């Protein structure tokens, strides 16, 4: 962020600090709306994991825990690496912004690639809800509900990952042209908030999709 010196009189902001704080607050407002979007999904999970507990747990037991845990570790690391880019941005160190940003993006792409492998495996095993669903028995309805939630939630999260990776690459491009300085680095900061939010959502999805009801 920048200092408190005044902007020109055409600007809607009183100072550069006011401008930057408004941008950060705007991102938090957007993230609050995103929390409500994912909140609807979590509500579905809360209700059906209670009312259709048997089938839901059967679905959880069929997810690939190794890939899920590896992806969680990858996302934690990616978020940490991008936070290094945010710190570098505050110092106006564009080279480190590029390096950390690319590292975070590569880890994000690795997450998506592993998710693709996992989805492929699940499609081959007929775990996509429908007439050829692989799990039979009295709890098949609950298991189909679980996999509907699983595919919707992971698709929605994956889309957020794609947007996040695009934003990080945009930041890297700007940093390559030395666009950021100690006085102005708000975009690096704001993309960091978004990327950490995507990480945060996965920290909640991971236990719901892979852990609770597994034992």
């Amino acid at each position: 962020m920048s200092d408190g010196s005044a902007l020109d009189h055409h600007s809607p902001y009183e100072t550069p600090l006011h401008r930057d704080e408004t941008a950060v607050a705007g991102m938090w407002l957007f993230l609050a709306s995103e929390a409500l979007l994912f909140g609807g999904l979590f509500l579905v999970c809360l209700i059906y994991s209670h009312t259709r507990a048997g089938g839901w747990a059967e679905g959880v037991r069929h997810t690939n825990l190794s890939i899920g845990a590896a992806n969680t570790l990858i996302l934690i690391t990616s978020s940490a690496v991008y936070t290094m880019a945010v710190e570098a941005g505050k110092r106006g160190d564009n080279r480190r912004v590029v390096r950390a940003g690319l590292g975070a993006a590569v880890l994000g792409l690795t997450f998506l690639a592993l998710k693709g492998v996992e989805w492929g495996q699940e499609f081959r095993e007929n775990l996509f809800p429908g007439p050829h669903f692989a799990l039979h028995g009295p709890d098949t309805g609950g298991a189909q509900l679980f996999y509907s939630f699983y595919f919707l939630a992971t698709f929605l999260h994956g889309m957020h990952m794609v947007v996040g990776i695009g934003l990080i690459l945009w930041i890297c491009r700007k940093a390559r042209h030395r666009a950021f300085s100690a006085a102005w680095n708000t975009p690096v900061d704001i993309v960091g908030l978004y990327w950490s939010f995507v990480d945060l959502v996965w920290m909640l999805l991971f236990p719901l999709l892979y852990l609770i009801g597994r034992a």
Partner: protein
Amino acid sequence: MARIAVCWGMLVLLLAAELAAARLGSGIGVGVLAVLMVLVIVLGFMQILRAPPLAIIFALGGLFWLTILLALGSLDSFTRTTVPVHAAALPGPTAE
């Protein structure tokens, strides 16, 4: 840099604890650890406490509405009494 490394270390440890809790079948334990991971991200990576006051208000507002959504939305399912119905008690098809 040290802050980021500490947060990363804490998240990895919490992930390991989460996997152990899942193996022991403790759903509540897994839930608590997941919330702790979220707190580490919000406080350590997103640094909400250093954000402008308006951003903190928006974050708390989001949390408030999320709580309302989850609490009111799940109220019916968690409070409804389910009475088992035996097949023999159901009325059969009536002869015309």
